[in-house]
C-alpha cells in the first residue's frame, strides 16, 4: 500500500519498546499526560494562552520553513499538504524556502525562532542530522521538538543497464573483482556517502572511489550516461530511468520490516540477502519539527491537522499516483528518529573518517 496513513512504528527493533508510550501520548494529546520535558514546555508557553489555561493557538499565520529549494522532495510534499492543512486552520500557513548549507541554514533559522508554535520546520532525519554531525553547528539540532512525521523516502541502488548487474551479490562481486571501481550518490560527506561507507564496512561492498553529485537527479543521470556504473538513489528519483530500461534495479536498502519501497514492491532488500540492516540511515523519515520549548499542546494541534491532511483524498490519490509514500507518525516518533540519528550513526560511523574520506 503506497499511501496508507498509519501510526508508523520505528524502523529498528530497538525502537519497538518506545512505540507504546509514543502512541499513548500522541493519541491522548493532553498536556496533563505529558512527560517532564513536556511539562517544562508548558511552563515556557507564551502569552497566547489566556488566564483560564485555554489556548487559542494558532493566533497568527504559521511559518513553515522548508530548508531546501523550490521543487525538491520536501518542497513538493509541503506544497501538496499545506493547502489541505490551511483548510483546517483559521490561519494561513506560509511556506518559506530557506535553503542552503545542506539544510542547516533553514533548520538553524527555525531553531532560533520564537517557540510559540507559529514556526515549523520540515527536515528529514537522518539526512539533516548527518549534515550537522559532519559540519557541527552552534545550535543543538537534537533539541528541536518533534511535531510529527508525514512520509518516508526509501533508498535503492540502481546500475546502468549495460552492465547487466544481477542483484546486490553480483554488484559486490564486480567491485571485488575490480571490474567496477566507482560508486556514487549525492555529495561527499552527506547521507548517501555515509551509506556507501557503511555498506563498504558492513557488507563488503568494496568500491574504490565514491563520486558525489549535487542531488539524486544528477547522480541518476550520470549512471544512465555511464559516467558511473551504479549509484544510491531514492526510489522515486530512479523510477523513470528504470521504466525506460536505462537503469537496472540492484537492491532495496530498506528492509521489508520498515516498509520497503512502494515504487518497486518486488525488489529484494539487503536483509533478505542476509546483509545487516541499515534502515536507520537508508529510510529517510520526513518530519516536522518546532523550535525547542514549543508547547506540546500546540505541537499536537499541528500534528492533528497534518494527520487529517494526509488522510484527504487529494493527498492519498497523489501518493498512489506518484509512489511518494505518505505515512503519519506522531511527535514522539519524530523525536525518536531525530534522537536515534544522533545515537546510532556515531556508533556505526566514524564521522572523522567521513570528513577525511570526503576531503580526499
Amino acid at each position, binding site marked *: 500500500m503506497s499511501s496508507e496513513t498509519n501510526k508508523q512504528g520505528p524502523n529498528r527493533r530497538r525502537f519497538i519498546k518506545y512505540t507504546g508510550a509514543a502512541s499513548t501520548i500522541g493519541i491522548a494529546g493532553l498536556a496533563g499526560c505529558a512527560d517532564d520535558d513536556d511539562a517544562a514546555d508548558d511552563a515556557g508557553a507564551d502569552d497566547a494562552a489566556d488566564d483560564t489555561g485555554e489556548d487559542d493557538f494558532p493566533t497568527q499565520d504559521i511559518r513553515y520553513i522548508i530548508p531546501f*529549494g*523550490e*521543487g*525538491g522532495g520536501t*518542497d*513538493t510534499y509541503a*506544497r*501538496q499538504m*499545506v*493547502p489541505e492543512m490551511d483548510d483546517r486552520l483559521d490561519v494561513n500557513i506560509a511556506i518559506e*524556502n*530557506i*535553503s*542552503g*548549507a*545542506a539544510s*542547516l*541554514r533553514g533548520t*538553524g533559522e527555525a531553531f532560533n525562532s520564537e517557540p510559540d508554535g507559529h514556526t515549523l520546520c520540515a527536515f528529514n532525519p537522518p539526512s539533516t542530522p548527518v549534515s550537522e554531525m*559532519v*559540519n557541527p553547528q*552552534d545550535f543543538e539540532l537534537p533539541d528541536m521538538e518533534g511535531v510529527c512525521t508525514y512520509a518516508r523516502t526509501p533508498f535503492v541502488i540502481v546500475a546502468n543497464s549495460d552492465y547487466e548487474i544481477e542483484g546486490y551479490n553480483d554488484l559486490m562481486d564486480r567491485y571485488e573483482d575490480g571490474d567496477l571501481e*566507482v560508486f556514487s550518490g549525492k*555529495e*561527499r*560527506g*552527506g547521507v548517501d556517502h555515509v551509506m556507501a561507507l557503511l555498506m563498504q564496512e558492513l557488507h563488503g561492498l568494496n568500491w574504490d*572511489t565514491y*563520486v*558525489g*553529485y*549535487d542531488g539524486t*537527479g*544528477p547522480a*541518476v*543521470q*550520470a549512471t*544512465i*550516461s555511464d*559516467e*558511473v556504473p551504479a549509484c544510491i538513489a531514492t526510489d*522515486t*528519483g530512479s*523510477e*523513470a*530511468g528504470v*521504466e*525506460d*530500461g*536505462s537503469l537496472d534495479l540492484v537492491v532495496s536498502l530498506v528492509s521489508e520490516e520498515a516498509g520497503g519501497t512502494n515504487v518497486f514492491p518486488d525488489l529484494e532488500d539487503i536483509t533478505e540477502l542476509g546483509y545487516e540492516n541499515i534502515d536507520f540511515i537508508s529510510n529517510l523519515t520526513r518530519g516536522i519539527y518546532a523550535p525547542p520549548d514549543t508547547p506540546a499542546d500546540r505541537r499536537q494541534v499541528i500534528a492533528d491537522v497534518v494527520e487529517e491532511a494526509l488522510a484527504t483524498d*487529494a493527498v492519498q*490519490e*497523489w501518493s498512489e*499516483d*506518484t509512489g*511518494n509514500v505518505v505515512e503519519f507518525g506522531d511527535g514522539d516518533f519524530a523525536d525518536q528518529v531525530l534522537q536515534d540519528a544522533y545515537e546510532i550513526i556515531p556508533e556505526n560511523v566514524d564521522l572523522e573518517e567521513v*570528513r577525511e574520506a*570526503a*576531503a*580526499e
Partner: protein
Amino acid sequence: MSATQAIIEATFTLFAWPTFGWVVVGIILGVIAGSLPGVGSAMGMAIVLPLTLPLGPVNAIVLLVSMYSGAMYGGSISAILVNVPGTGGAAATTLDGYQMTKQGNAVKALAMSATASATAGFFTVLTLVLFSPILIEIVLMFGSPEFFLMAAFGIAMITVVVQGSMVKGIAAGTFGLLLTSIGIAPNAPELRYTFGSLALYDGLDFIAALIGMFAIAEMLKLAAKEGGIADEELDMSGSVTEGVWETFRYPVTVVKSGYMGMLIGAIPGAGATVANFFAYGEAMRASKDSESFGKGNPEGVISAESSNNGTIGGSLIPTISFGIPGSGSTAVLLGGLLMHGLRPGPQLFGEELATTYTFLLALMVGNVFIILAGVFLVTRMGRITQVNTHVIIPVIVVLSVVGGYSLRTNWIDVLTVIGLGVLGYMMVKHDYSIIAFVLGVVLGPIAEENLMRSLQLSDGSFLIFVTRPLSLLIVILIIAVLAGPYVKPWLADRRAG
C-alpha cells in the same frame, strides 16, 4: 496511440477552452514573475503550483510551462529598461539592451527581445518534438569532463568579450572566480571563508551578484544624471516594427543562439545564465562589428534573448525523459508533473503522449502570445525610460534589495547586491570588464565542481579531458578561442603579404 494521433488529440485539447486560456494566463504571470528581480520562473512557478490542484493535469502543466516560457522572456524587460536583469538568463541582455534604451531605442529593443525570444522558443521546442530520441542521446554524451570544459570554454570567452585592456579583463574574471570559492566546497564538506556564518555556507548567490553589478552600479551612475534614463530629446516612437524586422535580419544569430541555449539548458546546473553569455560571446566573436557590442548593438540583444528561451526546450529533455530536473524551474515543473500523477519517462512518451504533446504545443503557441504581448503591450513601457531618475533610482534600488533578499531569504544576498553594486560602479568607471567578472562568478562553481569530479573519476589523471571525442573537440575549441586573436592577424598578414 501513434505520434500523429497524439499530436491531433493534443491540438484539439490545446485549442479547447479553458486550456487555451491557461496558456495566456501562464505567459502573463510568467512575464510578470520574470521581470521582477529575484522572483523569476522557479519561485513564480512554485507559488502557483499548489493553486494548480483543481485544474487537472493538462491545464496545470500547460499553465506551468507557459509561466516558464513567459518568465524567460520577462527577464529582458527590466534588463532593457532599467539595466536590472529580472532573471539570470537576461544578464547579457542588459549589455546592449540597456545601451539601446539610453540611445532612445528602448521600444525597438523590447520588440526585438520579444521576437527573438519567441522565435527561438518556437523552433527549439519544435526540434524537441521532432527529434527527442536523438536529443536524449546527445545530452547523455555530456558528462562531468565535458561540463568542466564547457565552463572553461566560457571562461576562455573572456578573451573575446573583453574590450580594452586584456589584463584588466583577466583580473576582473579572476576576481569573479575567486568570489565563487566562498562557501562549502562543492565536492567535500570543507568550509572556505565562511567565518562561522551559516549564511555564507552556500557562498554568494550569482543572481545577487548580477543584480548588484548591473542594477545598483547603474543607479549609482544615474544618480549624477538629470532627467530620465533616455535623453529627453530622443524620439521614443515608431520603432516596434523595426525591432521585429531587425531580429529577422540576423537569422543565423537567432538559430545559433537558440540551439546553443538548447544544448546548455540540458546541462544540469548551467541553464539560461550560462547560455546567455555563451551566445552573446559567440555572436560577438562571429560579428564583423564586434567593437560595437556593449554599445547598443541589436545583435547583442538578439543573441542573448534567443539563447535564454532556447534553454527551455533543452532543460525539458532530462526532465521529461528521466525525471531529472536541471534547474530550479524544471524541478518545480517536475513537482507539478508528479503532483498531477504524470510520471516522467516512458509514460510521458507512451500512454501520456497526447498530454506531453499538449504542453509542448502550448509552449510553441505561447510564443505567439509572447510576440503579441511584447510588441503591443510591453513596448508601451518604453515611457519608463523618460521618467525622472529621482523616481526611478529609489524604485530600482528597493526592487533590487527586495529581489536580493527573496532569492534565498538570506541577508548576505542583500549585502552582495549593495557591495558588488558599488564595486561594479568602480569597475565601469575604471574600465574593468563587467562581463569578464560575471563569466567568472557564473561559471566558477560549475568549473570547480566538475573539474574535481572528473579528477575523482580518472583517479587524478588529466587525460580524461582529451581521451573522449567530445571533450577533445571542446579542448580544441578552447585553444582556438584563446589563440584566435593572435592567429587571425598573423594569417591575415600572410595572406596580404
